[in-house]
């Protein structure tokens, strides 16, 4: 990444106090999640979750893993844009996006352990002879694990200098050289791997078959829908995160950069909506959306979260309006969120009588994980060279 130093400003640590009211609040939320985590690991899933035989997975899998990894697609989307489509001007957005991604994914992997009843057998999935290579979950698990490693390597230029103490002082320059030489490989993998597992998360819904409501059971279109929304979410998250960072850290906004980014986002959103609605019409599932059911209600919530941003960002002028851009990004994130919640929980009916609504403890863990993610982001951008350095009169 450093070879792009010709562009804009090299990243630099922000510095500043680490203990602030915000970080303290986030720390408290993280601590609450840790307490529930301890209870879960001592007394089991039944003690803290509302999971049952009808709904063997719940909020932790659907939010923390499926949605969490989709929200963490900023790094993927930016790498796709900068390195594959060779749009170098977006480079300042890559490293912050990557930081959010590497955390999003690592925490998604951690929350899988929370949700596995017999987590001590988790290594079986990678072990030859135990692993079921025909399973979609196998693909997701190996792909996500690999991607997390790839992302830490991609992100390593940001922290390698920091850890160069003691005996590491000697080897860090060598590591940096090797990493820099092979970076093209890791970047390629960093684009390939999410394309694989983000679509596989959709493939998992194919397996649900008739248990999934017709509004979401799009069969072999599901992988594409999940992949497209993952890329969309990547764009949206980059906008969301860049806006919050510039506000939170009192930095100038990168509105023009984001506005151009929004153009891609808008085009992709149009493609997605055409595909999604076209598929519903062709399959004859659209009438389900006009029935007075809970599923239809949540379907419309989901669709409006996609349609409203399409209208909001249609004009170039509105894309340059930071408020509208931010609003559209939030709505898109909510849309991707609802698509996954609807597919995995709302539209998923496993038989008469089975209900699932997350327990308070499940919410505490999820909120705590998000808090931890934000906390780590704040601390790391202050300590590590992630955000572009500011020059006077930068615009």
């Amino acid at each position: 990444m450093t070879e792009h130093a010709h562009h804009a400003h090299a990243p630099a640590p922000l510095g500043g106090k680490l203990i602030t009211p915000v970080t303290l609040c986030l720390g408290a939320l993280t601590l609450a999640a840790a307490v529930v985590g301890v209870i879960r690991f001592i007394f089991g899933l039944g003690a803290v979750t509302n999971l049952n035989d009808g709904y063997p997975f719940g909020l932790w899998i659907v939010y923390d893993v499926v949605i969490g990894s989709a929200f963490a697609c900023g790094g993927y989307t930016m790498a796709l844009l900068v390195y594959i489509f060779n749009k170098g001007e977006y480079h300042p957005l890559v490293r912050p996006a990557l930081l959010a991604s590497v955390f999003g994914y690592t925490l998604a992997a951690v929350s899988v352990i929370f949700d596995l009843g017999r987590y001590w057998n988790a290594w079986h999935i990678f072990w030859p002879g135990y692993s079921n290579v025909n399973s979609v979950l196998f693909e997701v698990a190996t792909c996500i694990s690999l991607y997390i490693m790839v992302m830490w390597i991609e992100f390593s230029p940001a922290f390698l200098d920091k850890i160069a103490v003691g005996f590491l002082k000697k080897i860090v320059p060598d590591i940096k050289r090797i990493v820099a030489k092979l970076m093209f490989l890791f970047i390629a993998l960093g684009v390939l791997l999410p394309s694989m597992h983000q679509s596989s998360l959709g493939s998992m819904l194919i397996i649900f078959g008739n248990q999934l409501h017709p509004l979401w059971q799009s069969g072999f279109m599901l992988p594409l829908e999940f992949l497209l929304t993952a890329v969309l979410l990547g764009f949206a998250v980059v906008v969301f995160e860049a806006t919050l960072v510039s506000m939170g850290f009192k930095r100038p906004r990168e509105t023009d950069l984001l506005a151009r980014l929004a153009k891609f986002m808008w085009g992709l959103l149009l493609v997605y909506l055409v595909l999604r609605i076209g598929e519903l019409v062709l399959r004859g599932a659209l009438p389900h959306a006009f029935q007075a059911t809970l599923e239809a209600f949540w379907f419309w919530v989901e669709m409006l979260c996609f349609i409203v941003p399409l209208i909001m960002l249609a004009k170039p002028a509105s894309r340059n309006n930071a408020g509208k851009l931010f609003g559209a990004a939030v709505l898109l994130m909510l849309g991707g969120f609802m698509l996954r919640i609807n597919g995995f929980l709302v539209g998923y009916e496993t038989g008469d009588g089975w209900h699932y609504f997350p327990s308070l403890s499940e919410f505490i863990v999820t909120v705590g994980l998000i808090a931890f993610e934000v906390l780590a982001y704040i601390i790391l951008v202050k300590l590590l060279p992630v955000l572009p350095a500011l020059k006077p009169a930068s615009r």
Partner: protein
Amino acid sequence: MSETIFDLQREEDAFAVVEQRLQISRREFMQFCAAVAATMGLPAGAEAAVAKAIEQAQRPSVIWLHFQECTGCSESLLRAEHPTLEKLILDVISLDYHETLFVAAGHQAEAARKSAMQAHKGKYVLVVEGAIPVKENGIYCKIGGKTAVDLVKECAADAAAVIAIGSCASWGGMPSTGPNPTGASSVAEVLGKPVVTIPGCPPSPYNFLATVVHFLTFGKLPEVDQLGRPKFAYSRLIHDNCERRAHFDAGRFAIEFGDTGHRQGYCLYKLGCKGPETFANCPTQLFGDAGPGTWPVGCGHPCIGCTEKGVGFAKPIHQTAVLKNVVPPLSYPRIVEEQGGTSFAAAAALAAIAGAAAGGAAMLAKNLGKQAEDGKPGTPATNQKAD
């Protein structure tokens, strides 16, 4: 050994002889051999060794003594419904002396015993059925003027193997129940050395046959536990192989005969079933070759522990058993699975989170939009997230 056991041509001839001798088809004969081998838990292919041993014309001489008993063990052996079992019983072994099956009587019978003992000295198998009274010098059981104690000692002296069949011969059984007026004792106690015991009241005939056939096939008696019981039949608790075990584990018990639980086949533990402290293969071997359910617990009666010294004929039938090496699970599995619901706190928490997020995002967007309209894109917004 296994390679040389089965010589096809020789086997053809041998089978012809066996078919003629036992008057059964070759198929039936092999079925019997396989059944016996399976009872002993021998590996596949062992039925060939069994078949070879049985087809030999030279059958071991068996002397069968009866003392304090009901002849139930002999009855059980004879009443087995396997089509030609009784033929096999009488033809696999050469039953040279058996008081209740003998045609001979009186001195004639005693003479037959003596001549058999003489002819097969050191090679015959002695089977003892019934307990041996030892009080008052054993006067409570006499045959041909001799006490049971003397008879068993005399016959055991030159026997190749001694097998105690039934609970009475094994450990005193029913005749030894307190106050034990005749001093009923087991064969091992009278002989002063351990013998193979086939306890049960009556025992499964296959456990006895398999023991004898083991002796024929391998020239020695099968491996036994500390009470002399062949391990192939008496190494597992009845409780561990019981078809009602799942009800025990789930806490579903019959409380009275004829109650709902009893009619639905629930566990009989609370009716006094001694399965949890009795070692025997009854649940897997069953009785009478009549198919599933043909054993006491299968028919709805608690096990009385007849194969276990100190349990059968000692503990009251309806006294609950002592649990041996089985500890009930701390928590029983739920019979009704919870199907989930929504807690008010969780719903309220979600509403609060959603409301805060929506409000925050809307305010943020509004502020940003205002600044954009004011034409101050670079001005940082004042926001609660600022540090």
